[in-house]
């Protein structure tokens, strides 16, 4: 036994050293989790759960995350975390809760609706706060996101920076899982400096972050924001929204639009890189009584004012129809139905947010055809200068069994800007 073991000893020793030498590749990984643990431990005193509490029951309505960002005990979170408190301040209050059980009241000091940020002031919280990073990020750089998903407890998620998102409002893509509840939590680099604020779930394991420089500028302007006498933030929200929409409208108007064909119709193309376009269709068969092609473009980043009220959608939808099988009357019935049921608007407005639509139909000479056009607008209740606007239009084809449909939806623009944009849209519609 001993004799054999002497022979075995050297190879085993050799293999052992070999394995030891090959380990450094894995050693990094060990270090990484040490990093995450280290960062978690280091940042934890400044990271909190933000709870929206019903004043009457004392129980939470929703929760998000937040972190301390300055010496004067200012917390950062997402605007959408506290939006219900802004909507119904008499109903809800805001509290922070730390992992160690420490809790206290918070009040809103400043908001940035467009970039989804809010600054909250608290008493009695820890003195430690997180520093904001001003370094440029590189694609693939490791980041750590902190937050309390689904009220399960404070967690840290590793991921990477994946560049800016195509959007009207600057956002960063984070390749790591964000869950409901982590909104408002910090995303930090390896040094523990905040590079962004967790904001939204873009896709499975892809999150959207608000860049840290927006937090910086909000911190600078915190004294400038004075809510109305009754604590109403409507004026501030309206001003921010107006500025942002003004910027977007100007961008769209100065952009050079191209044109593309859909059947006989020539329609706008590439009005802005932010808009994503999709197109599909179907042919006449057992399931479908007509041929159709459709194309729609819209932006997928909208601004949340409160849980039932999002705005900032810009979209257009074009389609064509033709049929062999349908009778003339049958076709016109279909055509009628497609004209009256529009697809390019969101249905989630509440009575408290906006007035109902007012519509008017008229006849428009566009390209060679005469069009029947419905123009609709609805005013926002607390922001009387802003409107959702909608155009639905079809050319009058007489007895022919083919047709087109055009829909344009612009949300949250002033009427002058909306009209300018519609003018540009309509002048870019032509006929082959």
């Amino acid at each position: 036994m001993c004799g054999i073991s002497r022979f075995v000893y050297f190879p085993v020793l050799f293999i052992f050293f070999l394995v030891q030498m090959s380990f450094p590749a894995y050693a990094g990984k060990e270090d990484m989790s040490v990093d995450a643990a280290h960062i978690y431990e280091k940042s934890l005193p400044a990271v909190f759960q933000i709870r929206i509490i019903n004043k009457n029951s004392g129980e939470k309505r929703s929760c998000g995350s937040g972190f301390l960002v300055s010496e004067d005990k200012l917390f950062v979170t997402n605007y959408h975390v506290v939006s219900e408190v802004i909507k119904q301040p008499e109903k809800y209050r805001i509290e922070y809760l730390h992992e160690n059980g420490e809790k206290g009241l918070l009040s809103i000091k400043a908001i940035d609706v467009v970039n989804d940020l809010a600054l909250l002031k608290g008493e009695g919280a820890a003195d430690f706060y997180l520093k904001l990073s001003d370094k440029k990020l590189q694609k693939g750089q490791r980041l750590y996101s902190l937050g309390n998903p689904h009220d399960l407890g404070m967690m840290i998620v590793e991921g990477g920076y994946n560049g800016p998102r195509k959007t009207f409002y600057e956002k960063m893509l984070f390749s790591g899982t964000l869950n409901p509840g982590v909104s408002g939590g910090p995303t930090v680099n390896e040094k523990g400096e905040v590079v962004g604020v967790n904001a939204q779930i873009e896709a499975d394991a892809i999150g959207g972050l608000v860049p840290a420089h927006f937090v910086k500028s909000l911190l600078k302007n915190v004294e400038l924001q004075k809510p109305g006498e009754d604590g109403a933030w409507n004026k501030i929200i309206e001003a921010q929204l107006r500025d942002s929409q003004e910027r977007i409208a100007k961008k769209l108007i100065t952009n050079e639009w191209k044109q593309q064909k859909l059947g006989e119709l020539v329609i706008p193309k590439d009005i802005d890189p932010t808009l994503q376009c999709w197109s599909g269709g179907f042919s006449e068969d057992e399931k479908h009584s007509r041929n159709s092609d459709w194309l729609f473009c819209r932006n997928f980043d909208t601004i949340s004012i409160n849980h039932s009220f999002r705005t900032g959608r810009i979209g257009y939808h074009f389609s064509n129809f033709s049929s062999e099988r349908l009778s003339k009357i049958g076709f016109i019935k279909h055509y009628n139905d497609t004209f009256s049921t529009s697809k390019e608007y969101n249905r989630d407005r509440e009575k408290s947010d906006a007035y109902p639509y007012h519509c008017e139909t008229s006849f428009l000479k566009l390209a060679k055809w005469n069009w029947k056009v419905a123009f609709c607008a609805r005013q926002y209740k607390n922001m009387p200068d802003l409107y959702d606007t909608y155009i639905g239009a079809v050319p009058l084809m007489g007895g022919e069994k083919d047709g087109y449909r055009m829909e344009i939806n612009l949300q949250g623009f002033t009427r002058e800007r909306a009209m300018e944009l519609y003018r540009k849209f309509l002048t870019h519609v032509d006929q082959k």
Partner: protein
Amino acid sequence: MSTRNNRRYVIEVFLPDVQTSQHYTFEEKDVVTVGRAYGSDIVLRDDFVSLEHMQIRQDAEGFCVRDISSLNGTIVHKKRIKNEDAFLKSGQECQLGRTRLRVYSADHALEDPLTLNWGTKLQPLLNNMFVAIFLFMAVIIAGVFYGWLISDPDKYLEEDIYGSLFMTGGVFSVVLFACSINAHTHRKRVFSPLRVSIAAIIFLVVSSIVLFVVPYLHFYVPDMFTKRMLDCILIIPGTIMIGMFCCYINEGRLRLKTIIQFFFLSLILAFFSGRLPTDYDPVPRYSSILVAADMPVPNLLSIDEFLTHSQGVFNKDR
């Protein structure tokens, strides 16, 4: 006996402002004189009656009424006569001044008192219900036939047509049923099948108008308010006129004055229903009617004109 009875007659006098009537019975009297003078056979206290106003004479067929140069004349069968003769059947009446006279021959019988003999009273009602159901079925069959004519793979149009015709048939049956009950309780005769058929034709014509004419009117309508107004203006008087036609069909005439009153009432109703507040609707609703024909377009706008014109939809809630 019978001769004697035949020579006997009764004149019933309804004086103005008096609830009851007086009966004068005459036997073997050729001529009865009526007037304000005390020498008359029937003396009337009515300032609008002349001293010697008229004469009544019974003949074989009924009664002959002669006006004798009265100042205001005598009204017989809604016609004013002066120095003329007119003929009255037993049970009919004439009017002098504000007084009415009704004449009865000896063999005039009062109507039977109303008895609750449902077996015989319900029979005509049931007959009419069968007519109504038959016509209702006919309307449905017409709808099916029409649907087959313009057959459409997706059955869109059929649903509309069936729905409208079903409604029309249903309303028709209900109106006819109500009219039958009305006629029955007022001891009228049951309407003739001819009149019922005329009513059914009017129903079909109106429903066809709703289906085939109204879309062409709607095509030009600029907003939902006007559309709702138009709907009410078309539907309410249409329905009322049909209903009135059915209700008056047994009297053989339409009362124009009432129809005009109803028309104006429905105009007012239409205006208010057009203004009725609706529930909050997050979806834009607009008048979207398109028609198969190549219709002339009255106000064709250019892009600039369209944008200026559309400014009207802003500011509506301020």
